[in-house]
């Protein structure tokens, strides 16, 4: 359980307010080579922009103070232009534009080179309203909490299952639209282990707000370990009540939308539940993954996350309890 511990430790360590701020999903806290490049370009741009803004405001203040109308003012001198000023007026912005054109083209080429055509490391699919990640070459399929290895250049393929979504983890660099009918790609070289927040940032419907992303970046061995475990089928030791839950799950239509590898449930509409209990949050970041929340969700999904695709099934309380026990044991 090495990875779980290291991430948990990271999350629960005491932190000062400033450190909490540093955990914000901000483009100014890059944790990947690509994000780094963008952050420094952003810094250059901000400096230039602030400079221009200062000049404009400075001039404006000077003019406002100096040329305020005073009683008895005659008509001021009626000049209409000045070739030197006009030359500067066009020249200086043009110069700035040329500099930033160069920087833009340079950074673009670094951040997002074309798809190399090799097998992607991760395939990410946006669904309403959750993220699916599969790891080609392995059988691992996970939802919303996506683990990635640190220190190597990864190729991400980004798809959508229904409408347009957008993959955005600010600390890892560029965002990329997930568009139905086409495959986009991203390159990511994560430099620091940690947990990085992100969110869908193309409006995709009712629950666009709760389509958050958690990327857990781990050192390569831990990551390998994790993938290996996620690739296995669920084979938990079940308590009696959990066994009843499993039976209930297979009797009900759950399996037509959800998949639990190793059982008869093979649906691909909703999130894969094979290792459901190992996720820290549920419903794409909406709430902590614990039995109470799960019970609430199963009782009335449309109350917990209105607009989500999970229909409300009217089940007796007992059945929901055993279902919760079953799902909670799917580590």
């Amino acid at each position, binding site marked *: 359980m090495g990875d779980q511990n290291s991430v948990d430790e990271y999350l629960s360590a005491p932190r000062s307010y400033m450190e909490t701020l540093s955990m914000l999903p901000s483009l100014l806290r890059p944790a990947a080579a690509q994000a780094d490049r963008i952050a420094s370009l952003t810094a250059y*741009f901000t400096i230039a922009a602030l400079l221009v803004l200062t000049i404009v405001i400075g001039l404006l203040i000077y003019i406002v103070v100096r040329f305020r109308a005073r009683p008895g003012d005659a008509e001021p001198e009626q000049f209409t232009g000045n070739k030197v000023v006009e030359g500067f007026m066009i020249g200086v912005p043009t110069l700035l534009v040329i500099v930033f054109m160069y920087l833009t083209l340079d950074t*673009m080429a670094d951040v997002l080179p074309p798809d190399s055509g090799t097998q992607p490391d991760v395939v990410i699919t946006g669904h309403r309203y959750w993220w699916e990640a599969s790891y080609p070459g392995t059988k691992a399929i996970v939802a919303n909490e996506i683990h990635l290895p640190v220190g190597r250049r990864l190729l991400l393929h980004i798809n959508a299952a229904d409408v347009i979504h957008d993959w955005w983890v600010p600390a890892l660099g560029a965002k990329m639209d997930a568009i139905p009918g086409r495959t986009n790609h991203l390159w990511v070289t994560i430099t620091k282990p940690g947990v990085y927040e992100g969110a869908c940032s193309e409006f995709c419907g009712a629950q666009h707000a709760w389509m958050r992303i958690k990327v857990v970046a781990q050192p390569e061995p831990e990551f390998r370990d994790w993938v290996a475990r996620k690739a296995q089928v669920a084979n938990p030791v079940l308590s009696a009540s959990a066994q009843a839950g499993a039976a209930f799950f297979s009797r009900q239509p759950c399996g037509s939308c959800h998949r639990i590898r190793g059982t008869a449930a093979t649906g691909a509409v909703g999130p894969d539940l094979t290792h459901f209990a190992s996720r820290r949050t549920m419903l794409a970041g909406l709430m902590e993954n614990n039995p109470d929340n799960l019970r609430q969700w199963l009782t009335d999904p449309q109350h917990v996350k209105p607009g989500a695709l999970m229909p409300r099934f009217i089940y007796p309380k007992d059945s929901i309890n055993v279902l919760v026990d079953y799902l909670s044991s799917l580590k």
Partner: protein
Amino acid sequence: MITDVELPEPEKSLPGATVNSDQGLLMWISSVDHKQIGIMYLLMALFYLFVGGLLALLMRVQLLVPNNHFLAPDAYNQLFTMHGTTMIFFVLTPAILGLAVYLVPLQIGANEMAFPRLNAFSFWISLFGGLLLYFSFLAGGAPDAGWFSYAPLNQTQYSASPGIDYYCIGLLLSGIGTVATAGNLAVTIITLRTPSMQYKYMPVFVWMVFIDSFLILAAFPSLNAALAMLLIDRQLDGHFFNTDAGGSALLWQHLFWLFGHPEVYIVVLPPFGVLSEVFQVYSRKPIFGYPFVVGSGIAISLLAFGVWVHHMFATGMGHTVNSFFAVSSMLIGIPTGVKVFNWLGTMYGGSIRFTTGMLFATAFLVEFTIGGLSGISFAIVPIDWQLTDTYYVVAHLHYVFLGGSLFGLFAGLFYWFPKMSGRMYSERLGNWFFWLFVIGFNLTFFVQHILGIIGMPRRVYTYPALAGYSALNLTSSLGAFLMGLSMLVFLYLLYDALKRGKRAGDNPWDGYTFEWLTSSPPPLKNFTTLPPVYSFRPVHDLNHPEIGDYKKPDEEKYGTKDID
């Protein structure tokens, strides 16, 4: 001295001349007079401004604290969609058309628009388009896919309520009205200028409206085509944008932004013209670099059609496409920057009177510069990749639409208020309104830049309690309430001015253009005689013959004299 020339009578009598003020409301409803229609356009814009503002306040209440349950998600989604659609199509567009329809005939020395009935038709169809759009609230749900309604979310299988159908029809109707008014304005400017007014003597505002008309004529068809296709998709089961049946999600984006980006300039160019008038008159100096101001307007409008792809940098179109559009988008920064410095140059060396109109114009310079600069960050593709579709965009577009367009419109509204109503407004109330509005505006939107940078996507009905999110959103909401409050002051100001304002003379600001020659408010027939035009500020020539641009050769009128 300059001698007046008789203004030729129109061949046929002015339509609507038989309706008189005794007929009350009927006089307005049946009117084909450009001034009345202009005012109705402005009132429509004001009405929808309050409606759209109310929607925004509801949204800000929902975002006051994290994980709020004040509004259900689908309600919130309808609100922001309606807010955006309303503000762009039913506030800014009618407001600029209203000002243009009111002022263009006055400024070019005409007594009417070229097609007065068409003018009335355009106004009413726009108004009904808006009402139809709002009817969707009663008909099963307002549109909920955002003001640009991306495919395939706009398809029936993802948005089953009839809201988007109403969106299509409402925008098509008002779009027809907008195109017709644009054509009308262009023809008016081409054919009805007082005989001695050459193009190069047109006031900058008229120039901007002229350019704007062509921009509208060229940009709206693309939206209309997209909306027609969307209606066919939704009503006749077509497959233009239905990705499940082979349609293209990107086709919608191309068509929409081919309209959508020029639309930004459509609603910002006439305010540029307004500001050029306001800066001149309140600084008591002619505009600095007239050819540059007008020329950069033309440049902006032509460039407008070559940059729309920058709204799509994150759709994965590849470097070749992205690079070219990055470059063309950055180029727009040049003519825009030129304008800002032209206005500074106009103020420089002047004798500036800080009326409420001038205060808005001055604040505009700062706000619009911020909006323009944050706009450039979207032309820089890698920064766009981080910041597009976040609150940074929300901040940017509000600095452009509000800080740019609306501030300009407010400046114009205060500048021309005495002309339109015949009354002076209270400068004290005007000052209150200005400061409350400006502070509220900056509180609301400046912090949203930061929210975007720290990872908050736009169009979320709620957000997790991450560090910083709560405080910044709270600030933003408080700012919004302050703006709401200031709008009440504005209402009171209008009431106060109409009720108690002292009579305005014909030319209270010592204005430069023809509208200040006629009485305040102007009579049904604007002018009977007009002086000939020898420069771009004929009334200044008339009132200040000792300065007299008319005596100068062109190179001095336009500041293009070579420096020795």
